[in-house]
């Protein structure tokens, strides 16, 4: 029984543990670390052909360049030349015979300085026999639609019959663009050789265990020879889940070959060219609905540009299907994925992991119905929300038991003054000739858990030292999201200590083994519970020890504000710990957690892949310029569910940041490839993430403070990393409304994403032309 008087450091807005260091410039990132004597620098040589056979490769000039120590090729890889995270053996470290995308690593070079290595890498001469290349979903479909991994079908009911019988039916296509992670700190790894087979790799990674496995694999050594550490990343967003493997492996190969420390850091352009991004999709859909706008059936095919290898495209495209319902009940549904092979960089995890693309389709579907029936899309949304007692089975046959979308949306509709503002927007558009406005309210329901069920486990390691100070380690990684702080809050709370008593140390594979990626929003859910378990183990031992400290034999034991209350006695925490040590109590524990009650049968497309759902909703209001397609996002209101927040300030930071990142994905961030396969948008000069001045000037973000996770998660909180990204879908639908106004909303605009000013202008011009001609 937890005592109500306990000061709870959890659920309070404590400042990020690294904040003071970050603002002072002394928070250390890998490139900032002091380098051992003899440190040298690796750089990658990239292909300049989208698909071809390497006829010859001349590395003479590279090897002879100023400062060069050696080149690295396939011959330097002791183990298999493969870093495919799914074990499909489809992703070489260095492409040696066939290159499959423009920018694929084909060799490495190591020099005394990074500048020398970088310059040397450009001196290679490669002759290719060019093979036909397919860059886009369309091109892949036209050329045999080769898949990189096994597709998924989700099916419930008889969608074919229900579509045929539906009073209304419409079908269309939605194209959804990809997104570069644009973490501010690019990929980096720093390998320091040790004795025997040992190597220590500092890697900016969300998945130290996988880096460990990949490095061991490539070096042909056991996992126990490789230690991977990461104190903090300068952003990850999914881009360092598998994409860090390449750099870590190359640094480690170099370090073992030369017996010198080797660092590798690609420049921004190479980082963007050679590492994977969010998947772009082409979704064909067919919807049936009734006169009230209730969906009767949906069939949709999600064709994804996966790039040349599988990477995480299987689970990403799966998750797109898992979220094609968003918050809506689909009585009869067939969803299929088509993970297509293309001659582009292999697409990968990115915040939301396919879910956002699924949700975008769901919201477009609602808009289509609303335009067809000439109703406010919000009315259609509400008509289709999952029920709480009935109409609550998902296309993957999981029952939605924690549905709070009705309350979220109702509250937001009122707090944002949606109805009055929508009326004002409609009135404005009647009289304004050039500037048109739009407003939209969209919900989010996001499933929490790795769909790879075995990933839903975590470990933590807690040491209490004799002075009462605590060192905390867990399997999660810190990329700015405040995970370390949240776990430290839990530990501090368990021992009734101020947060300053908890020292958070770098994630390290030699402290907590066999960790899962810090991904799927699961960091605090999994690692928080593991840390709690470690605390409980130590506390159980301390409780046994404390029995003899008090005259009241069955007395209580409490940890309150730096003190330990044992029955009628009080001890300073440090004194209590010192006594426990003297009494030979073990003050260290390894905690463990696995998510209960989840299971998933991919073959059948049935199960309970998600432990619970996180919910939210947003209202966006925009204005567009019908002469140029330029627009402004003027106001955004968000109400989001994080259960009982572990740290409201951190969670609001995730929501604000996630929304703006989603907004960038859907508006200004456009990936453009040249016909020859080169990525043209490969630096911030050509790839435009949002700026401070793009953030809505009115930006109201609130937590659904009444929410508490009905599942037994850590302190009844909910995951927050990914779900808020999709709140940005309201921006697309608001822009869509503004565009539709030019033809008095008579049809739903064809608006693919990202909705650049160009797309806005061309969409409204198309509407005007087709309206004029009909």
């Amino acid at each position, binding site marked *: 029984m937890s005592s109500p008087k306990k000061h709870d450091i959890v659920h309070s807005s404590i400042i990020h543990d690294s904040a003071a260091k970050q603002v002072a410039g002394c*928070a250390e990132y890998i490139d900032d670390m002091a380098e051992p004597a003899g440190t040298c620098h690796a750089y990658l040589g990239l292909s300049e052909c989208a698909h071809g056979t390497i006829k010859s490769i001349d590395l003479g000039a590279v090897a002879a360049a100023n400062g060069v120590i050696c080149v690295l090729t396939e011959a330097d890889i002791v183990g298999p030349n493969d870093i495919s995270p799914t074990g499909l053996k489809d992703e070489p470290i260095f492409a040696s015979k066939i290159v499959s995308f423009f920018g694929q690593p084909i060799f490495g070079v190591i020099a005394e300085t990074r500048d020398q290595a970088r310059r040397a890498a450009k001196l290679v001469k490669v002759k290719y026999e060019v093979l036909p290349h397919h860059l886009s979903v369309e091109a892949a479909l036209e050329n045999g639609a080769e898949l990189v991994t096994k597709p998924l079908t989700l099916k419930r009911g008889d969608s074919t019959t229900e579509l045929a019988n539906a009073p209304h039916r419409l079908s269309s296509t939605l194209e959804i663009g990809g997104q570069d992670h644009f973490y501010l*700190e690019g990929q980096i790894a720093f390998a320091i050789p040790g004795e025997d087979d040992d190597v220590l790799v500092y890697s900016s990674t969300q998945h130290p265990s996988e880096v460990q496995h990949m490095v061991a694999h490539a070096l042909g050594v056991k996992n126990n020879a490789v230690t991977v550490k990461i104190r903090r990343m300068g952003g990850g967003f999914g881009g360092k889940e598998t994409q860090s493997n390449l750099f870590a492996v190359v640094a480690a190969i170099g370090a073992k070959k030369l017996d010198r420390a080797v660092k590798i850091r690609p420049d921004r352009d190479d980082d963007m060219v050679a590492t994977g991004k969010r998947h772009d999709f082409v979704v064909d859909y067919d919807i049936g609905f009734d006169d009230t706008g209730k969906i009767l059936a949906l069939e949709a095919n999600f064709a994804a540009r996966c790039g040349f290898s599988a990477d995480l495209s299987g689970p990403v495209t799966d998750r797109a299907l898992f979220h094609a319902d968003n918050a809506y009940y689909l009585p009869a549904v067939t969803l299929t994925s088509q993970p297509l092979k293309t001659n582009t960089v292999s697409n990968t995890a990115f915040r939301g992991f396919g879910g956002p693309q699924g949700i975008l389709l769901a919201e477009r579907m609602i808009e289509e119905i609303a335009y067809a029936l000439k109703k406010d899309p919000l009315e259609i949304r509400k008509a289709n929300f999952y029920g709480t007692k009935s109409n609550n089975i998902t296309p993957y046959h999981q029952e939605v038991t924690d549905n709070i979308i009705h309350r979220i949306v109702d509250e937001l509709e009122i707090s944002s003054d949606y109805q009055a503002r929508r009326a004002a927007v409609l009135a404005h558009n009647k009289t304004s000739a050039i500037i048109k406005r739009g407003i939209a309210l969209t919900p989010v329901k996001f499933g929490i858990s790795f769909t790879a069920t075995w990933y839903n486990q975590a470990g933590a390691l807690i040491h209490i030292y004799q002075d009462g100070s605590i060192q905390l380690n867990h399997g999660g990684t810190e990329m700015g999201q405040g995970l370390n702080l949240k776990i430290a809050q839990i530990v501090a709370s368990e021992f009734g200590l101020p947060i300053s008593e908890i020292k958070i140390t770098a994630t390290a594979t030699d402290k907590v083994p066999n960790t899962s990626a810090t991904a799927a929003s699961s960091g605090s859910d999994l690692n928080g519970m593991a840390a709690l378990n470690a605390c409980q183990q130590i506390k159980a031992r301390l409780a046994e020890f404390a029995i003899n400290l008090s005259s009241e034999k069955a007395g209580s034991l409490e940890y309150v504000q730096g003190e330990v209350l044992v029955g009628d006695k009080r001890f300073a925490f440090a004194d209590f710990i010192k006594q426990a040590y003297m009494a030979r109590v073990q003050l260290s524990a390894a905690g463990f957690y696995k998510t209960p009650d989840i299971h998933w049968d991919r073959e059948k497309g049935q199960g309970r892949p998600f432990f619970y759902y996180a919910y939210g909703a947003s209202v966006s209001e925009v204005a567009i310029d019908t002469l140029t397609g330029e627009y402004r996002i003027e106001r955004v209101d968000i109400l989001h569910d994080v259960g009982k927040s572990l740290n409201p300030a951190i969670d609001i930071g995730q929501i604000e940041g996630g929304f703006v990142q989603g907004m960038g994905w859907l508006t200004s961030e456009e990936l453009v490839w040249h016909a020859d396969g080169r990525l043209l948008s490969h630096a911030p000069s050509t790839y435009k993430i949002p700026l*401070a001045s793009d953030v809505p000037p009115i930006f109201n973000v609130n937590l659904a403070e009444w929410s508490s996770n009905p599942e037994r998660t850590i302190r009844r909180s909910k995951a927050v990393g990914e779900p808020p990204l999709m709140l940005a879908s309201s921006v697309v639908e608001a822009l869509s409304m503004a565009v539709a106004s030019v033809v008095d909303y008579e049809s739903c605009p064809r608006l693919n994403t990202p909705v650049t000013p160009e797309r806005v202008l061309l969409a409204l011009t198309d509407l005007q032309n087709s309206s004029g001609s009909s």
Partner: protein
Amino acid sequence: MSTLPFRNFIRFILNDKVIELDELAPTQTLLDFVRLSERLVGTKEGCAEGDCGACSVLVGRLSDGVLSYETVNACIRFTASLDGCHVVTIEHLVGKEGALHPVQQAMVDHHGSQCGFCTPGIVMSLYALWMNNPRADANQIEQALQGNLCRCTGYAPIVRAAKSVLSDGGQSNDPLIAERGEITAKLDGFQDGVRVEMSGGEGKIILPASVDDLAKIFLSNPEATLVAGATDIGLWVTKHMRPLPMMVFTGHLDALRSVLEGEDAVSFGAGVTYSEFFSTIMQKFPQLEDFWMRIGGQQVRNMGTIGGNIANGSPIGDTPPALIALGAAITLRKGKARRFVALEDYFIAYGKQDRSPGEFIESISIPYLHTGDQFAVYKISKRREEDISTLCGAFNLRLDGNNRVAKIAIAFGGMAGIPQRANRVEKALLGQTWNEANIKDALELFGVDYQPLSDVRGSATYRMLSAQNLLRRFYMYTQGTAEELQRSVS
């Protein structure tokens, strides 16, 4: 002449330390210098092209004896250009007892950092704003942050931090304010007015003693690369790794940074930066105010020069379309000879300008608008701020007493291989009544004037359609019926 005194080293102050360098690769960037040579690793590399601001530092410079600081992108600023300056990195902000600066503390209190990688750069940008404009409003905060990308926070907490510290107003405990006198004296002592000439293993660095000296040097070394703000040349080095064996720096020449507001025109040195020219824009060309603040980010505006913008001959050009429409002219100098060229004639074809070897742009003049002239410039870009134009159109119109077009200049960037006038459109409108019907008739002539390309910034179709629509917008503007997007921040 060869007996003139010269110096074979550069010197500047880095935080509290005097740096003297007599050996330096001409292309070494300030970022590499502070991180690799000085191990001041608080300043980060995010993009190495002046776009993300993670490398933002302050550079203080004496001008007419007054010391002023501004943010620059260390990633594309060449170390050699810092002779006589005070470079301030994030490490200098923390007080003697480790106390955070008020700007830093506000960032902490408002949860303004998440991953923290952009944070030092953001702090430096906000610090410069706080120092130079302690009462900055929300709009100015956004402008100060235009050159800083953050991928985590969505900026909201950063803006909250900025608002909070700027409303405090007090500027106590500030290292730069405390040491202003001392630094001014030191930098003043550095001003010896002599040429700096350094030959390293990898090339040669020259900092001319004067504009005349520059003319002489460039005449005898026409293959040298002239570097003013380095916002373009910096990328030749960081992105393309181009060897630049001889670099002649001009940023220290005050004579190239003077602005003379005359009777009929403003004349100014080619080295005037966008930031320095902003007060003239406000006074004389207020129609350009919004456009001006959409060029680059604050750091790029602090570094980049109008002369450099013209000289590099970009087909888009930030300022050329507007300056061409205004009838600007440039003075080209070669040795002692000067010639004057209308700006529109300077651009000949893609990659080709009317400039001979050894010749450089010395100054620019822009005639003022006559009373009653109507002028507007419109920039369209994928992202509104800190983006290169997809296209940019400038319109300058004079009507006679009968509402007929007496004079019109329309210039576009991003529509051709060079910034170029819309000659056929202009011709069709000249002498005609300024009304909707005539505008409409002229629109199709854009297709004669321009054959735009499709590229990463936009399609040819979009460029053509929106260029035509910009003429329509300009017409509405002259009729007082233009509706424009607003951004109202409070």
